[in-house]
């Protein structure tokens, strides 16, 4: 597990495209998103970062060139999938730390006042990331990259539309009406989806020709 995490971390800090995204995405959101609840900005940043970094690492090793290297190393296909699913929590931690430091500096510089640590939003972000990943990861194993990318785009668009809907309409938004963020139902759903998705991905990946 540590070897896979180490690999993900080395790749993350060496990938210029991801570093540029990480650098400019926060100011972009701060100055463009006008939310009814400032906490949602923090939530959106964490979810997007964790989602993009997890997906990038997954794509590298499951569908990209890296799959040949990883699969010729002493690690089984089941373990690769298991570690990839487990590593989303590692990516969540990195996102929380990174967003925290970045937003804290923005606060300190007096550019704008934003949340740089909000435990409530972190707990809401975790099941959302788990849900998104539960759909996207098996799609990348099961389908051609182009189809998987379309599914990925649709899921992410769904998330963004939800956030825009919530930001613009607040209590009257569709998200509030269906009560996604109320109670524990979202957490239970995320756990079930995550486990089912993990099992499905393990089976699919073990049978997949690279």
């Amino acid at each position: 597990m540590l070897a896979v995490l180490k690999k993900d971390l080395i790749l993350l800090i060496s990938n210029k495209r991801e570093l540029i995204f990480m650098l400019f995405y926060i100011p972009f959101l701060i100055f463009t998103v006008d939310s009814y609840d400032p906490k949602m900005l923090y939530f959106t940043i964490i979810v997007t970062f964790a989602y993009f970094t997890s997906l990038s690492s997954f794509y590298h090793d499951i569908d990209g060139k890296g799959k040949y290297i990883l699969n010729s190393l002493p690690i089984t296909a089941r373990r690769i999938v298991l570690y990839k699913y487990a590593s989303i929590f590692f990516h969540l931690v990195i996102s929380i730390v990174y967003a925290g430091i970045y937003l804290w500096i923005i606060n300190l510089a007096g550019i704008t006042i934003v949340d740089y640590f909000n435990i409530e939003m972190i707990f809401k972000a975790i099941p959302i990331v788990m849900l998104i990943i539960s759909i996207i990861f098996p799609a990348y194993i099961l389908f051609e990259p182009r189809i998987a990318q379309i599914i990925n785009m649709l899921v992410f668009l769904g998330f963004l539309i939800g956030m825009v809907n919530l930001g613009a309409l607040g209590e009257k938004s569709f998200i509030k009406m269906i009560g996604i963020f109320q109670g524990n139902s979202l957490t239970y759903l995320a756990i079930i989806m995550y486990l089912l998705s993990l099992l499905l991905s393990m089976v699919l990946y073990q049978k997949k020709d690279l």
Partner: protein
Amino acid sequence: MKYILEVNQLKKEFKDFKLDSISFKLEPGYIMGFIGPNGAGKSTTIKLIMNLLKKDGGEIKVFGKDHIKHEKEIKDRIGFVYDQNYYYEDLTINQMRNIVASFYSKWDDKQFNHYMSQFNLNPKSKIRTLSRGMKMKFSLAIALSHHADLIIMDEPTSGLDPVFRREILDILYDIIQDENKSIFFSTHITTDLEKIADYITFINDGKIVFSQSKDKILESYAIVKGGPELLDDSTRKKFLGLRETKFGFEGLTDDLDLFKRNFGDRVLIERASLEDIMVYSVRG
């Protein structure tokens, strides 16, 4: 463990290609060359051995163990070299080494550094800046730095100049001095194999043509040359492959005595190279 690698009745079917129940074995302490034209099934076989492709039937045993049931343990003892660079191009040699080293139980930094200096590779160089030959050397350094007992290589020498190729062959020859290690490598540069291989497995169109010791193969086959007047329909059928011009013919046979008996001094008999055997067998 009698064999380091055993492939029995291995099958794999694609839409337009079929690996048709192939079998071969490799003992510890030997180099086996895996030859065949492009698209014959060499890379498919190697990917099946590495479990990168899933077999449709048959059995693969590495170090006497099933290659799927004992995948992790087996891969820990295999050094694998691809036909092209799959390493992350944005990383430096050192970063890539850090990633790969964490997976192996017997990773040896001293050995890796030894190969880095032998190959004149700078650990701070980004992989994308390396030439094809340098990338191959880096792959080889990775494959040789965890005390692997079996080295599997897919076309390691293709696209490399003769000096690089000879250097790689010399290294492989050194490795094989340890009687417990074996090397299995695919190539279509048959002259490389004539220098170092002990066994040759020839695959064509998804079927094994032969898998034998190199010396036996080179003894069994011969090139027969003669004038056009010697050829008739029945003689033509006795060749494994034949090339005819208006001045004469040149053909491959594995029944030398037959031609000696029938034509005596009227034909010229020459030793067949592996390339001759491959070319004539494929063309027919």
